[in-house]
């Protein structure tokens, strides 16, 4: 019955099949093979990535829960915990953008409330091909509508995020979603099954045939038949999830649960085997008891279904009626489908008859782990070489400072994302104190004086040019964005989007990126508490840029000390922390003006980065700065322009120096204006704070320099004394505001 074709269809290699037979001591039946195939899929087993992920720093006094549970958790004072994680839903979103994105949001929300936390904020990190490429608008509209449709309905605000457009994401858009919740630290609950004989309950939506083999799909490359995989994408029901969320949080208040886990990838299979494995126990269920949406479903289909909005619970003995009563109140019906056993096995029955019997450890801890071969990609040497002297004679050299700035502001990656975040309810729960578009998202924590800041960042272009440095820069930028609000970065979560790990070049990129993340997280004091790996992001053999996306969460001791990125008053002094080093490699400028993806990304000194972040947090606490904006995509000129936007037209004048890179004035000026040197922040402050701020910077060994003043209605920047940029804020802001929106304007009478 099980031949090589069946194995291939399940994505199980002949070697893996031999191991399966070894674990069972016999040939598996089809249901068992299905169970193994999803649990051993890349998506669930992390078989290619695990050896690398083990090297990440995961500990710190603030960490209450590191990787391995449904989500990580950190101590945020007052006996409270912040619970957060990021997850990808790339493959489903390509096939069916609305449902793919919606169910991604649903999944990450479940991960958070499964831990006993009330979800209070969402972020997302999206990647698409160029906005004018065929299909991009449809994908972007669908993904945004899906995120909005789910998050708005369930009532969790989407408070920030990022969107980048690059041709490499054609055919492989990235949809990474982040959720954060809060809980009493003492109320955190785990996904464990223990206590022999305890009841195992199923609650939530009925099981259908949707999403069967979703995890396997997410572990394969795409080709031109991928659209036919649509039935493997699940359909979301945010109303059902809202009921589940409220009911589960109510049940958790009763202390009647041993453990709880959501059914995400690999559905019932994953939740039963993982809960058993964590609790050192076994789980036995009867699939005929599972509520079903369709008739005639086989045990195979029931075990592998990825129908959304379902939870598995283990209840303390004698507390069952209490739990059932709460679910009844919410018109949900908790159904007892099995019990906890003592033999460490996953045992599945169908009307009493045994249909699968597998040791849990074979599905979890002892799933295959690969140390895949690695080799630096051949393209690297070529793309890292950037000959600046060529720039002087290239067509881009004729683009002056004003035109380059307006071009960058109109580049969809840099342009205002208002068209997107206006579709997300970003204010529900009345906690949002830094709105989307203002840097990191910030939510206050009711009942305390504190607030939490969060940011997701990643630059695939940097990682393509140097995966290790690119990943370090992603960590640094996310933490810097959080610090710019005045919040002290606490911990991180990562979403690692890469191509096919069976290619040595991809595996090398992955290993380099993990190394970079580890180094940066360690140096910046933000341990990784969880995350997600998404491999096989390839279509027709073409991989995306390696794209590690980092989410960082930080704590503001005093919510009312929050700082936003925009200038506040005319006549304030503008100070630049950090130094421009005339770096143009990998910049948005090179791409937009010269159509070049070339060079090495900006250098990063982690000690300097940390000192900079600590300085800006301390200054915010003392309310010495009125605004703070991280300097990244588009360099200092774009940063200054953005500081002027949404301020009803406060302009600025600044004067900076250029390095002597090439002997060509044009290129030197461009490097000073648009170079993306790391570890820089632009702050504005009142005149009387200048001396103190500069002293504090000097004491912290952070380079700091007054570069100008706010006021007027133009942005004027002189480089080496020569006026290089002089644009009206109105015009610049129009360009920046309209770039994305204008692609979607519809005339409706």
């Amino acid at each position, binding site marked *: 019955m099980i031949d090589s074709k069946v194995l291939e269809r399940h994505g199980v290699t002949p070697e893996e099949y031999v191991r399966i037979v070894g674990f069972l001591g016999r040939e598996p039946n089809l249901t068992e093979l299905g169970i193994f195939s999803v649990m051993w899929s890349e998506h669930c087993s992390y078989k290619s990535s695990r050896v690398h992920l083990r090297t990440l720093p995961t500990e710190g006094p603030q960490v209450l829960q590191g990787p391995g549970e449904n989500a990580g958790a950190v101590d945020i004072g007052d006996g409270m915990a912040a619970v957060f994680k990021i997850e990808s839903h790339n493959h489903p979103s390509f096939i069916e953008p609305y449902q793919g994105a919606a169910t991604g949001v649903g999944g990450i929300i479940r991960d958070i409330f499964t831990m006993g936390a009330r979800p209070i904020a969402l972020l997302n990190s999206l990647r698409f091909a160029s906005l004018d490429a065929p299909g991009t608008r449809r994908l972007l509209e669908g993904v945004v*509508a899906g995120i*909005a449709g789910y998050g*708005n*309905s*369930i*009532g969790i605000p989407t408070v920030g995020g990022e969107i980048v457009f690059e041709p490499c994401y054609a055919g492989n858009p990235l949809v990474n979603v982040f959720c954060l919740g809060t809980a009493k630290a003492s109320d955190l609950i785990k996904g464990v099954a223990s206590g022999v004989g305890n009841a195992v309950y199923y609650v939530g939506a009925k099981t259908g045939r949707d999403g069967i083999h979703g995890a396997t799909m997410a572990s394969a490359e795409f080709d031109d038949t991928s659209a036919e995989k649509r039935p493997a994408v699940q359909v979301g*029901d*945010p*109303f*059902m999830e*809202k*009921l589940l969320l409220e009911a589960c949080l109510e049940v958790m208040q009763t202390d009647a649960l041993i453990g709880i886990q959501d059914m995400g990838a690999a559905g019932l299979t994953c939740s039963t085997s993982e809960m058993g494995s964590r609790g050192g126990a076994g789980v036995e269920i009867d699939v005929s008891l599972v509520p079903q949406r369709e008739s005639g479903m086989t045990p195979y289909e029931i075990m592998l279904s990825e129908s959304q909005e379902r939870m598995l619970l283990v209840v303390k003995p004698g507390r069952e009626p209490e739990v059932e009563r709460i679910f009844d*109140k*919410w*018109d949900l019906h908790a159904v007892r489908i099995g019990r906890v056993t003592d033999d460490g096995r996953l045992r599945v029955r169908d009307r009493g008859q045994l249909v699968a019997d597998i040791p849990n450890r074979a599905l979890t801890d002892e799933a295959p782990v690969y140390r895949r071969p690695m080799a630096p990609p051949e393209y690297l040497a070529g793309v890292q070489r950037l000959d600046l002297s060529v720039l002087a004679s290239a067509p881009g050299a004729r683009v002056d400072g004003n035109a380059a700035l307006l071009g960058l502001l109109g580049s969809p990656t840099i342009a205002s994302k208002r068209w997107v*975040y*206006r*579709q*997300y*309810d*970003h*204010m*529900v*729960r*009345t*906690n*949002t*104190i830094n*709105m989307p578009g203002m840097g990191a998202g910030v939510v*206050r924590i*009711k009942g305390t004086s504190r607030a939490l800041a969060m940011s997701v960042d990643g630059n695939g272009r940097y990682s393509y040019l140097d995966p290790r440095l690119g990943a370090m820069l992603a960590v640094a930028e996310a933490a810097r964005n959080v610090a710019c609000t005045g919040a002290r970065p606490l911990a991180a979560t990562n979403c690692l989007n890469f191509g096919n790990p069976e290619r040595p070049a991809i595996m090398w990129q992955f290993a380099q990126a993990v190394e970079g993340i580890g180094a940066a997280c360690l140096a910046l004091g933000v341990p990784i508490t969880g995350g997600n790996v998404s491999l096989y992001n390839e279509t027709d053999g073409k991989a995306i840029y390696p794209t590690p996306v980092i989410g960082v969460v930080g704590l503001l001791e005093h*919510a*009312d000390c929050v700082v936003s990125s925009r200038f506040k008053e005319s006549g304030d002094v503008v100070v630049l922390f950090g130094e421009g080093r005339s770096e143009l490699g990998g910049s948005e400028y090179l791409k937009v003006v010269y159509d070049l993806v070339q060079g090495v990304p900006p250098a990063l000194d982690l000690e300097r980065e940390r000192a900079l972040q600590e300085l800006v947090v301390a200054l915010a606490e003392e309310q010495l700065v009125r605004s703070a904006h991280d300097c990244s995509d588009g360099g200092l000129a774009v940063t200054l322009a953005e500081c002027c936007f949404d301020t009803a037209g406060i302009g600025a004048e600044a004067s900076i120096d250029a390095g002597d890179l090439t002997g060509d004035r044009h290129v030197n000026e461009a490097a000073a204006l648009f170079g993306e040197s790391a570890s820089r922040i632009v702050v504005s402050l009142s005149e009387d704070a200048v001396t103190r701020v500069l002293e504090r910077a000097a004491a912290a060994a952070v380079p700091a320099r007054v570069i100008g003043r706010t006021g007027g209605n133009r942005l004027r920047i002189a480089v080496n004394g020569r006026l290089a940029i002089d644009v009206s804020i109105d015009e610049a802001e129009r360009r920046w505001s309209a770039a994305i929106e204008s692609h979607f304007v*519809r005339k*409706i009478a």
Partner: protein
Amino acid sequence: MKFAVIVFPGSNCDEDAYHAAKDVLGQTAEYIWHKDADLKGADVVILPGGFAHGDYLRTGAMARFSPIMREVQAFAERGGPVLGICNGFQILLEAGLLPGAMLRNKGLKYRCEHVHVRIEQTDTPFTCAGKAGQVLRIPIGHGEGNYFAPPDMLRTLEENRQVILRYTDPEGRVGADPNADEWNPNGSVNGIAGICSQARNVVGMMPHPERACEALLGGVDGKVILDSVVQSIRSGTLVARA
């Protein structure tokens, strides 16, 4: 005084209304489950925003059948102040406590942002603390806030001064064509953002006053709406009306 915040399955601004009443205004507040049949002595009833029953059928169409709605209706008939915010407004329309209907926003997209509304009438329990012509900056967050009434009904609404909030520019101006004004975020007929019942005690509005009650959240203009009801209950004007 006591605020009742009705909780339907799928309500998601219930906690926000509760927080505003209790923590910001310092009043008593209680959640009332939609299956209950008792308003528990409340002085004012809020139907909060959200997606009651998922809004899968038509916004508010299922919620009107919840047992508590009979009590809300009776309370309204006695002259008690009832405020429907966003989805709560949609439910009041479906329940027939307010006239008209909601269509999908022009542009067909959900919109969340701050808008400006002008107080048109101050003789309702939810606008009496404001001044006629006063402009409030309050957030919206909805996909179906395009208020519609047929011409006859619309004329009656305007004649009876039942339009109490209208979308305007930041200075309180309405453009030449209020239906297509750039300040009108959803295409509502006559730029209508909020209306009251003929007896004036039942009010529905699409903007979220509870989201604009604290300076930390970016503005306190919404407090005028909630302060109004506290003031009107205190002054006893409502009792006279009932």
